[in-house]
């Protein structure tokens, strides 16, 4: 019977399925209390992972990110403030770790630059519009113009009525 042949296979598969969870990788150790973990997430979401630069420190799975989260946990447990933790990171990796770089002379261009360009654009637009308006011919009509318009309109009317009769 085919059933006989398959049953050891099924048994083996079921055993493997049952054993499988024991092979699962251990979860990364979390801090014991959720308060620390919450603060860790808030702080590390504002930081760049140095290895995979498009990921935040909170979301990255790189080894270094793991180590840095471990350090931040320790700092939180030591009772350091968020600012102290931030400067711990900046002292080592520079402003680059912060997604929100601080406003200081070297970052002025970064912070103010877009507004300067916007202002330049607005001024340019105003100047352009003013110049264009000045270049336009005056639209005031003289008495002679009005007479010609009347004549033309009259012509148009009579020709259109003629067309109707056709």
């Amino acid at each position: 019977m085919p059933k006989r042949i398959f049953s050891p296979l099924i048994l083996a598969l079921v055993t493997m399925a049952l054993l499988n969870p024991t092979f699962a990788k251990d979860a990364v150790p979390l801090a014991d209390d959720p308060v620390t973990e919450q603060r860790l997430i808030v702080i590390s979401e504002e930081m760049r992972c140095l290895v995979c630069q498009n990921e935040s420190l909170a979301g990255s799975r790189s080894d270094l990110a793991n180590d840095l989260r471990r350090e931040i946990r320790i700092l939180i447990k030591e009772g350091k403030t968020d600012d102290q933790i931030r400067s711990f990171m900046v002292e080592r990796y520079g402003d680059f770790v912060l997604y929100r770089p601080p406003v200081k002379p070297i970052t002025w261009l970064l912070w103010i630059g877009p507004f300067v360009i916007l202002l330049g654009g607005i001024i340019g637009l105003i100047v352009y519009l003013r110049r264009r308006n000045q270049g336009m011919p005056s639209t005031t009509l003289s008495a002679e113009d009005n007479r010609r318009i009347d004549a033309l309109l009259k012509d148009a009317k009579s020709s259109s009525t003629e067309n109707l009769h056709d």
Partner: protein
Amino acid sequence: MKAKFLIPLLLFMVLVGFLAVGLNRDPQEIPSPLVGKQAPAFELPQLADPKKNFSPESMKGQPWILNVWASWCVACREEHPVLVELGKLQVAPIIGLDYKDKREDAMTMLALQGNPYLLSAFDANGRVGIDYGVYGVPETYVIDKAGVIRFKHIGPITMAVLNQKILPLLGELK
């Protein structure tokens, strides 16, 4: 203004200029805030002899090189011959910082490829690496007599980096 039609061209040239500079930069290379500052102190067991410790304090009075490496790091193998060359020149002691490595693996690598280091400190959990702002091995620091970091190179040292940057700087620091 006859040359008005040149304005878009000029703007384009400016754009090309910005892109030429921006795109030729390596985004992996982050300027280190540690250059110009005192090298962080630490005390770690040595790679070859866990009973002995190493501390940067002991290097004061001479310029030296700190090279962060690991046996698992492919780029370190690439730079290793350059370090061996540098070691032969005897211009400055090279101290290794074996970063998150296994002792046997590291010893095997040095046995196979030569050991340019005066000694290596063994940073098992990478804690000292964090103090030095290490984010990609290999990294190399040139530290002066007073213990101030004068230069940092991220990624493997090439002969060009050695000849154009590290050796002239060491000559200056002597």
